[in-house]
């Protein structure tokens, strides 16, 4: 299985995709979670109590970038899109958790959808850590299954 990672990421194209996807997810998430402030000054702020949340964002972004870039490789190889769907679902679930605490997204959702929006928002906030852990688990499974199937599919039959 280790060979599969070497095969995929020996191509600079997939490394760039993975790095791009990582930052595409990581930057918005740390802004929403108020680790990074863009205005009026660029400030990064992390407290000891928020280290776990920050670590989960890093892990989620890393796993997502890995899963999606591996599946892009897979699509190119065998035109199979199923696992890309799973990794996107995992990413969306993980990204949604905690994004609805007191920020503009929560404000808009709650003022638009009223009580239902409030319940959804508080659910995503209360269960932020378990939801992110679940998403990381989903992404881990996707990476494992993708790598496994790729290593079988790529085997040269003699």
């Amino acid at each position, binding site marked *: 299985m280790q060979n599969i990672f070497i095969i995929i990421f020996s191509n600079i194209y997939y490394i760039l995709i993975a790095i791009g996807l990582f930052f595409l997810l990581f930057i918005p998430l740390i802004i929403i979670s108020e680790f990074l*402030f863009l*205005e009026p000054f660029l400030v990064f*702020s992390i407290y000891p109590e928020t280290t776990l949340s920050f670590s989960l964002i890093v892990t989620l972004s890393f796993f997502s970038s890995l899963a999606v870039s591996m599946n892009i490789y897979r699509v190119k190889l065998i035109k199979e899109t199923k696992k890309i769907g799973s990794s996107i*679902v995992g990413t969306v679930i993980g990204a949604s958790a905690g994004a609805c605490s*007191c920020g503009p997204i*929560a404000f808009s959702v709650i003022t638009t959808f009223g009580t239902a929006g409030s319940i959804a928002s*508080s659910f995503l906030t209360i269960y932020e850590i378990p939801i992110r852990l679940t998403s990381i688990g989903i992404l881990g499974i996707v990476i494992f299954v993708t790598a496994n199937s790729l290593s079988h599919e790529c085997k040269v039959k003699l």
Partner: protein
Amino acid sequence: MAKTMIIAVGVVAVILVAAIAISFSPNSSEFDNTQNTTENEFETLIALGSETAPVTIIEIGDYQCEMCKRWFEKTRPEIIENYVDTGKANLVFIDLPFLGNDSITAAEATYCADDQGMYWDYHVKLYQLQQHVDDGWASQVRLQAIAFDLDLNMDKFNECMNSKKHYNTVNLKKQMAVIEFGADSTPSFIIINNVSMDKIKLSGAAPYSTFKEIIDPML
């Protein structure tokens, strides 16, 4: 199976895009707009610190907002110590209770406490005791318990809460936060230079260093 997955991903993506689009669109607030904010209402704001301070920090918050609690615990103490207690700035709190039903009653309770001169003590207690949104930590009974703990006159406090005496005050503060200050999240901050009347808006639980960089040049 693959089709179902693609449809599911599509639906989730649409919901996500819609939520983001809504968040960046102009606020369609449900607030009661029958009352207009006037200059007099600014005078009704309760300030902590010297009235003649050269800087005013306006915090727009919700008592159930966890980011507001983070700011309360991490940034506020240093602001109080270095700017409010030294007479360089005063701090004003404007309610934007949108996260749950208990946000409104908690805000009302602070004004009932203010009737007995204990606004800031009650404000501090609420943030110290904050838990999850609408999980009962700010129920009527708990709000009464906080009042009792602060040695407030319970007859007056209960009468104030039961008669919804300050419902309009809270509603007015909500309007002020959204209409006058354009707040769309909590905590938000407006830092006003009382000499030049320059205003700087901040969104989120910004760290102390950000406030210092803004306030120091105003002094």
